[in-house]
């Protein structure tokens, strides 16, 4: 029964408020099998992707508020997925800076083509995020100025501050990095890398979180959210394109330049295969998250239109 309750927690809150009690009563009469457990998992996924399910008991206004909040949350999740994707994309860009990879891209056409596709996808995703996000950021600033609230403005400024802290940390690492340091070379390397990746990931999390918090606490018009859906679709498609191109890049590198692929030319001297796999996994997680959020957002937008019509 415990597993059932854990699985039920995967369902959206609105759905649980409406069906949980009778659902549990049904499951008490018939213990679930392993296949039923899988069915329950997919049922939860289905309910997450269709947020209008379970809202029949709500008033029109409550339904509107619920769908509006769901659409906003979905768009913000896509933004967070994009930030995570950027980190993986940045790792890919750093890895392919080495001359050996540039040479491979020139020698092997598929390696070169897939690399160009990654660049094209990155530009398209950035433009899409800017197109959808900038009007919302402007609305947050306007809303903060009208209501004379400094909080949202500070939250929007946080990414700049986080970036400055990241650059400051890099500067300090560079300044203290000299041969006469008391740490062993291995200890120094672990410290440097730990600080670098720790600061980078913390800066990304804090930046994405503060932007999301600012948007969630500001008055954003329904029109702006509707407008942001198309750029979100483009951003998600671009992420999927980059993911496919990155996978193709790795596979074609394995065939075209096996020694390079099997070498240690990954991030900070790690294995190329390991770095490539980690990048692909991170990109895949971010893309799946963005795609699921997009489906949920589209469903919420459709329900929102039905409520407002």
């Amino acid at each position, binding site marked *: 029964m415990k597993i059932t309750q854990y699985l039920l927690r995967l369902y959206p809150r609105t759905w649980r408020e409406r069906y949980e*009690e009778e659902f549990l*009563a*049904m499951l008490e009469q018939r213990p*679930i099998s392993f296949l039923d457990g899988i069915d*329950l998992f997919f*049922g939860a996924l289905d309910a997450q992707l269709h947020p209008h*399910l379970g809202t029949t008991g709500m008033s029109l206004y409550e339904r509107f508020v619920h769908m509006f909040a769901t659409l906003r949350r979905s768009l913000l999740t896509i933004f967070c997925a994009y930030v995570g994707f950027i980190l993986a994309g940045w790792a890919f860009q750093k890895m392919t800076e080495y001359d050996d990879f540039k040479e491979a891209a020139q020698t092997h056409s598929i390696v070169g083509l897939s690399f160009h596709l990654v660049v094209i996808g990155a530009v398209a995703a950035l433009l899409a995020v800017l197109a959808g996000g900038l009007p919302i950021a402007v609305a947050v600033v306007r809303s903060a100025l009208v209501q004379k609230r400094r909080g949202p403005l500070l939250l929007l400024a946080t990414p700049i501050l986080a970036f400055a802290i990241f650059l400051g940390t890099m500067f300090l690492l560079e300044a203290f990095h000299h041969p006469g340091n008391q740490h062993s070379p291995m200890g120094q390397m672990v410290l440097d890398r730990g600080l670098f990746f720790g600061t980078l990931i913390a800066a990304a999390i804090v930046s994405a979180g503060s932007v999301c918090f600012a948007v969630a606490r500001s008055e954003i018009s329904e029109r702006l959210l509707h407008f942001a859906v198309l750029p979100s679709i483009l951003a998600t498609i671009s992420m999927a394109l980059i993911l496919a191109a990155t996978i193709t890049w790795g596979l074609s590198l394995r065939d075209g330049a096996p020694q390079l692929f099997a070498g240690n030319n990954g991030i900070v001297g790690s294995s190329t295969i390991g770095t490539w796999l980690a990048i692909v996994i991170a990109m895949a997680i971010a893309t799946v998250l963005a795609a699921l959020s997009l489906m949920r957002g589209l469903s919420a937008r459709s329900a929102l239109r039905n409520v407002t019509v």
Partner: protein
Amino acid sequence: MDTLNLGRFSDPPILILASLAGSPKHGYAIMEDIETFAGVHLGPGTLYGAIARLETQGLIEPLPAEERRRPYRLTATGIAFLQEQLTSLETFASMGLQRLASI
């Protein structure tokens, strides 16, 4: 239990509507009934996914809860919809039988 291949009529929503055509039922009774008359086991996630959709579409409606269990019944729209679907199945079946008879 043998599983009948009901094609598109094995869609969970149609099975649930057909089950409720007999009488109002709660979730567990619907599941049992469908297993009996169609030989199809609906998982709990599938069953409640379909119930939620049918309710949203106004094809079924909940009745007051009996302890923790909540029965559902067909609405007038649900009856008309099921009628249409079953008539379509009947037409399809009689056409198929006529063609078989001419072989």
